[in-house]
């Protein structure tokens, strides 16, 4: 027997399996980052001194990174909309831009990290830097994970478009949901770490 509702929606829930699956996954991610934000709060209120982010970190670079990541979210949703419009060429373009934006984000992050390492600002220096590296490092891993999936759907995974376009569109939508979540986490990380 075939597994039902891999593509079509189950009538009573109005959802397909993948959609619920990705949302459950994101729910657990909320708890993962939630616990780290809780740790940030506990460390900060327990600290005798807590540096303002912009006295250590590079705000202009992070602002650029915020803009890059938000833009990649728009290109991601445009990639999905292009598939909805049956325009596979546009999808390739927007999905490619999303991946490039991800690369750009990681590049800037690399510049930031190496400047920190160069000045001896390591996690062992103080708890602010420790939570900074943990949060941004884990977020960076999520960016890499999202890019791997997006890259797969841009390249070899796109073959599915020919045989089962609806299924492929769903996949792009679900990987998009993950990508937007990564963006959303950054939207909170940015003020918490850099601006406060």
């Amino acid at each position, binding site marked *: 027997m075939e597994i039902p509702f891999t593509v079509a929606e189950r009538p009573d829930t*109005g*959802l397909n399996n993948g959609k619920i699956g990705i949302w459950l996954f994101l729910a657990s991610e909320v708890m993962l980052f939630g616990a780290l934000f809780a740790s940030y*709060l506990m460390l900060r*209120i327990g600290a005798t001194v807590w540096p303002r982010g912009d006295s250590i970190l590079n705000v202009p670079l992070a602002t650029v990174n915020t803009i890059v990541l938000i*833009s990649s979210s728009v290109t991601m949703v445009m990639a999905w909309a292009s598939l*909805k419009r049956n325009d596979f060429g546009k999808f390739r373009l927007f999905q490619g831009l999303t991946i490039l934006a991800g690369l750009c984000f990681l590049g800037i992050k690399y510049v930031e990290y190496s400047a920190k390492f160069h000045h001896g600002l390591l996690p062992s220096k103080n708890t602010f830097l420790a939570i900074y590296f943990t949060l941004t490092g884990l977020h960076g891993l999520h960016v890499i994970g999202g890019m791997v999936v997006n890259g797969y759907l841009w390249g070899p995974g796109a073959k599915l478009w020919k045989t089962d376009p609806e299924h492929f569109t769903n996949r792009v939508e679900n990987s998009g949901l993950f990508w937007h979540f990564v963006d959303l986490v950054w939207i*909170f990380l940015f*003020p918490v770490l*850099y601006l*406060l």
Partner: protein
Amino acid sequence: MGDHADIDRQVRTYILVFVSLMALTIITVTISRFHLPVPAAVTVALIVACIKGGLVASYFMHLISERKLIYWVLGFTVACFFAVLLLPLWTHFDPILNH
């Protein structure tokens, strides 16, 4: 889901959301330059971040028109999120020494 006209309308919304997100980013960075006292700065930064996060979740992630089941799951998650965020904090501010 919707036809092409519907998608076109959605795409216009995405562009609008994008512009708002950019504007809010610039606003929050600009405010941070004034070096407000910490409580005020935290409040403003969190409000702006929540608006931005809300826009991404509502429009890019289509939460504004999602199924009831997803709302239930996320509601449960949000409750747990606040539990892990706030209960350790309250416990921290209630040390036995105060009594």
